[in-house]
């Protein structure tokens, strides 16, 4: 089983968060980080897990690198019922549309049948906190609550060997 950390970004903060999540997960699972611009949901196998990381731009819109992905989901409406995922959003509470981008993406995945685990994590650029640190804390909480289910692919493989 693989954990795919996929990110939508404009200034690179979401990419940095994705790198930090990969680093935190390495050793426990096979993990990859990829820009949403180059990601096709068809690549995800049944037992895989997706961590979606995205910022917000404009008037609560998706960052540039997530837009083609979202458009593809809208146009093709693939069946994502095999997919489980969790969401971490980056935004700035200065904007009324705080963190709408990550919510839009998560809503879409759920609408297409995917199952979201845990609470959506959020980073607020105005908080002065490091995005990576907030994200890794969130990840700990997520794994604490749902780790067994997320790592199920791994655990089965271990039990078999």
């Amino acid at each position: 089983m693989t954990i795919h950390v996929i990110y939508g970004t404009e200034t690179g903060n979401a990419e940095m968060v994705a790198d930090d999540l990969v680093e935190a997960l390495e050793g426990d699972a096979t993990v990859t980080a990829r820009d949403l611009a180059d990601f096709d949901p068809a690549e995800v196998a049944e037992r895989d897990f997706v961590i979606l990381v995205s910022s917000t731009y404009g008037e609560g819109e998706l960052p540039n690198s997530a837009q083609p992905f979202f458009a593809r989901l809208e146009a093709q409406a693939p069946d994502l019922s095999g997919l489980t995922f969790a969401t971490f959003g980056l935004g700035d509470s200065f904007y009324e549309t705080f963190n709408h981008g990550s919510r839009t993406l998560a809503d879409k995945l759920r609408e297409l049948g995917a199952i979201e685990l845990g609470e959506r994590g959020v980073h607020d650029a105005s908080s002065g906190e490091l995005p990576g640190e907030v994200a890794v804390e969130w990840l700990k909480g997520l794994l604490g609550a749902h780790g067994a289910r997320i790592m199920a692919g791994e655990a089965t493989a271990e039990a078999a060997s």
Partner: protein
Amino acid sequence: MTAPSIAIVGAGPSGCYLAQALRKQWAEARIDIFDRLPVPFGLVRYGVAPDHPGTKAVTRQFERLFERDGIGFHGNLTLGRDFTLDELREAYDVVALATGLAADRRLGIPGDDLPGVYGAGALTRRLNDHPDEQGMRPDLGRRAVIIGQGNVGIDVLRLLSKPEAAFEGSELSPEALAACRATPLARLDIVGRSSAAEAKCDAAMLRELGRLAGLSFHFHATLPAPESVEDQAVSLRLAAFHELAERHTESHTESNGCQIHFHFGWTPEAVLGEARVEAVRFHGGESGRETLELAADSLITAIGFAQHDPDLPGAPDAPRPDDQGRLAPGLYCTGWLRRGPRGTIPENRQDARAVAATIAADLVADRAERPLGRPGAAALPAAAIARATDFAGWKRIQAVEAAEAPAGRLCRRIPDLARLLEIAQATPVGGP
């Protein structure tokens, strides 16, 4: 392929993004960033408004380039003063210029050099405590005119009119505020060449104005209905203008705060005055043939930026880059220096990544003609190396700025270059 040695001049967003992209390309390459100041991050520190700390937070990402990814920072070194471009190209296999465009573009009309005319770049540097502008004591008087309705013009409008208490939680120093707002402004006119629909500012910037207490807004044109336009950004901008206009009619009672007047479709013609600015004349208006004369104690131009160094791209006789950022074999440019003074931080990331890809492709293609192996900073003039500051020096500055934060502020920027250098060059405790 062995990794090249790479020098980047300019530690603003484009220089930092370029280093980041090149590090992903070559884990082992020696990559050094040079800046004329002992502090990094260019306009993120010295342009982005001090009351937008969220936008400045991108520096957390850049910091890790120096802290974790092995990128070198050599501050207090100016290209053209401490080393020449030729010396740098001798020392490094690849050189990339990311020095931005810092000079305020002038209006180019009679009177544009009268006392009382200020550039938005200089003014925002002053408000951000840039060492270069410490002598600047803008005398704005009671009435100021701003020319230019891009986001920079709106930043200036807000910073000059926002109630002082609303700067709580910002990085704006009380000294900078006092220097720029010696007398409270009674009226600000902001004038643009474009129509309201085509104004260059974002709706979010306008809505932010609408959230400020004590200001009143006046529109000297009929605003088109937001529903009448297809383009979403335009429609949102028009809606935001309407909200400001309606807010004025609703509140009605004139507060004692600043009156803000928006004018659209006017081209500046002359700055009038004997010894200093007294008025500004425009032509245009709805018919295109009208004249507008606005009384003013001062004028702030926010019409873009230009190159002040005659040898660098953007200057009339300087070499121009090709459309992929190449200036000469092994020499590149990126960011505002390459594209001109347009675009926000994200565009510099795209730009830097494209230039990094060009550099990587060229190194493969030119391998035979340009063997790698230049040693890097060690080959620069000894006097330059001796005066350089490093990233640890910046971290010491940052710690002092945080420790000295006045009440209600995130930090107190150190505006004095001598003090910045003293802290940056201090021998660290426990050091050699």
